[in-house]
């Protein structure tokens, strides 16, 4: 598990004096720097993208950093890379939620030490994700029994969530990716 402090990346990649994530060029520069850090690590990886020290995050930066980072993971051939998010305040969430909704994306974020989903997920996806969070690691038949549907349906839903990088598939079943609150990377 790895940890990336976004404000540190901002100061290193764009300007030492900046504490606000505003403008598209800034967001693109920060995302590029984060992608370079991620590329240094061999999968399987779970990386926590930490916004704790970010002051202001506008929609343009939320789109450039969060949405495009998620898109690159969803589209990737290597499926064993996961990112989750932490340190997002209410006003950060306004911007992040807007761009996730716009692009039909979702993410896992650490809310006071507890994983939550944010973004576009339908009710059925959410029920399956909740079942894994509560009981994981868990395979589809167990989730199906919990939710009262067929194992095939559960398998399809869980696989869909895995492809969206909202669940991990491990040797012992599906599990919610959990981040770290570490100090630096």
């Amino acid at each position: 598990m790895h940890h990336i402090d976004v404000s540190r990346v901002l100061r290193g990649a764009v300007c030492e004096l900046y504490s606000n994530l505003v403008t598209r060029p800034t967001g693109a520069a920060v995302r590029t720097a984060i992608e370079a850090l991620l590329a240094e690590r061999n999968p399987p990886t779970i990386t926590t993208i930490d916004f704790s020290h970010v002051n202001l995050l506008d929609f343009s930066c939320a789109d450039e950093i969060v949405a495009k980072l998620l898109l690159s993971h969803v589209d990737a051939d290597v499926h064993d890379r996961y990112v989750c998010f932490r340190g997002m305040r209410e006003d950060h969430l306004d911007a992040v939620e807007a761009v996730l909704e716009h692009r039909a994306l979702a993410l896992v974020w650490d809310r006071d030490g507890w994983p939550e989903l944010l973004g576009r997920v339908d009710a059925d996806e959410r029920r399956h994700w909740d079942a894994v969070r509560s009981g994981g690691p868990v395979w589809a038949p167990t989730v199906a029994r919990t939710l009262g549907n067929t194992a095939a349906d559960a398998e399809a839903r869980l696989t869909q969530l895995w492809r969206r990088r909202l669940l991990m598939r491990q040797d012992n079943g599906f599990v919610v990716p959990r981040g770290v609150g570490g100090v630096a990377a």
Partner: protein
Amino acid sequence: MTTVINIPPSLDEQSFEHVIEQLAPLPPDQKVLFDARHARWSSPFGLTALLCAAQSRTERATFAVPEHPDTVSYWARTGFFRHAAELFELHGHVPRPREGHDSDVLLEITPVTQSDDVHTVVGRIQQKAADILHGQLHLETAATMGFGMTLSEACQNIVEHAGQGGWVAVQTYSFRRRLGRRVVVIAVCDAGVGFRQSLESSPGHTRDDRWGDGRALESAVVHAVSRFRHGDAGRGQGLAGIRRYVSRWDGKLSVRSGTARIALVPSWDEDEPMRERLPAFPGAQVQIMIPERLAGDPAPAARSRGSERAGERSDGRSK
């Protein structure tokens, strides 16, 4: 021959239309004199739009400064004359701005040309915005951070779409005429290409018989269409975010571009949502107005997100 453009005694977004009506018929190289001698007050929109009016002239215009000492002093404190001196030939006495800033001026008139300017604007306003929005206008802390985001996105419209620099200013003032409350106002004005031409430059743009400045504004402000959408589906969210912020805090957003003007009109105002076939003025002029909150006002709509509902997590754990 010089044509005199009369500046209304009270210059705001509405009365600036009288300035445009006088300017629109004139060729850009016509020598003009902006006569502000009898002006007594201006909103940040009026002052930034005046600078844009000067930008739109190929022949350097003359500007007769307000005669009233309070007016000229206040305009000096907003930074107006510092920028106007570069664009106009100033006639009249311009006082040196006093040291120490006016408490009503959250952000002096500031040029916006490139992305770094947006960082400067947002960084400069943050602490003062928090003090005034929360302390004086009684807005919640969430409104302060959203204010910075809104300011950032409004300024980025200039950088990404105008094709030339523009101006931003933020002030608070008492808006007694319509509302009877204090308001905070962001004005972001440029004399660039405007929304219609910006959208027409998109590779995916198609036009029909109804296409014009009004449709362009509707596309950008209401439907979040951006000229960059063809290659990047995430574009166009800035104005949508501004719209959400303004709506959440019962504010007003208006955007004028070319010959049209669109407004998101709150219940306390009686403006027209769309006006077309106005006299032409280049670029885009944006005004965002957020009113003071008073005791007894309904709380802004709470946002439910993710799996949380009614104060509970989806796993049943209380927050």
